[in-house]
């Protein structure tokens, strides 16, 4: 999937994650902020990367602000943001 315009999904409420995506020329770039970055930072990044791979996204700049979202929410918000950006 090719990202053609900036888009966002999710919220800054507890248990949610706010995702912003932008077109990018140089592969996948992820900026992550999380209230649980020390404990789960690696895992959140991994879930985001896996979701992008499933959606066949190769070039995107993604900014994530996490408020303690579980995997199912991270996947849902990334997918929604990507679909909105197409």
């Amino acid at each position, binding site marked *: 999937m090719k990202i053609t315009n900036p888009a966002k*999904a*999710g919220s800054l*409420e*507890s*248990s*949610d994650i706010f995702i912003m995506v932008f077109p990018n020329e140089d592969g996948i770039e992820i900026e992550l902020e999380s209230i649980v970055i020390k404990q789960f930072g690696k895992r959140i990044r991994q879930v985001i990367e896996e979701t992008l791979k499933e959606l066949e996204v190769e070039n995107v700049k993604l900014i994530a602000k996490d408020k303690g*979202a*579980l*995997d*199912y*929410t991270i*996947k*849902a*918000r990334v*997918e*929604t943001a990507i*679909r*909105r950006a197409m």
Partner: protein
Amino acid sequence: MKLRRTMLFMPGNNPGMLQNAGILGADSVILDLEDAVSLDEKDAARVLVRNAISNLNFSGCEVVVRINSIKGDYGYDDINVIARVKPDAILVPKATEEDIEEIDEMLSIIEREEGFKLGSIKIIPLVETAIGLENIRETILASKRNIAVLLGAEDLTADMGIKRTREGEEIFYARNRVASICKAYKIDAIDTPFADVNDIEGLIEDTKRAKSIGMTGKTAINPRQIDYIHDVFSPSREEIEYARRVLAAKEVALKEGKGVFSLDGKMVDAPIIQRAETILHKAKLAGLIRE
């Protein structure tokens, strides 16, 4: 028989609430894609609810998804995405006979494609217009998937142009009609929610009123309402005790070769025995008795 005393509405775009849905004690949860979700978040809620059903443990709680109307822009996408993760049932807003027939066909196609058992995804029509109320029989007969009808009094009274009150006199006819027809077709009649979550006394009275005319369960809009509704719809200790005595007396009468017998000076016949059996079955499902 599945207990459906409470059906708790949960907003479909709220991850924190979705992930707690199964542990709040309701018999069913309704993950809402319709009124609880703003127009610009319909796509996000649909994906979130799909993922929630695929990944979360709802602790044996029945999972129902309220889709958007198939007459609008979102209903078909809702069914196409949600049915593929096999919710227990789809709640159809402002349901008509035609809507139910069409949704039944869509679900059959998806069940075949996904390898699900045909007819395994159930349907619950939501009656919330005057025409929906009057055509309820046809709507129920439109699909064998129908397991209950849910009465939505807020929209119904808006459609009728009448005021919704705490006492609910204005929906007396609607409740009776839904309860009677559901009983005739052996499906559940689920009552409209009680809107004031701080008025517990009003909730209890409203639930008792609904139960007294044959509604079998009630929707909840706040987890705090669940226990109060369960108390009303679960058999009381006295009812359980009386039911046990009826069945014990029946055994004695059978041994003595009597068809009709009396208990506490009152005649006991088939309907009373049947009611006693239903009470004990419900009590067992509710975990109030073991046998």
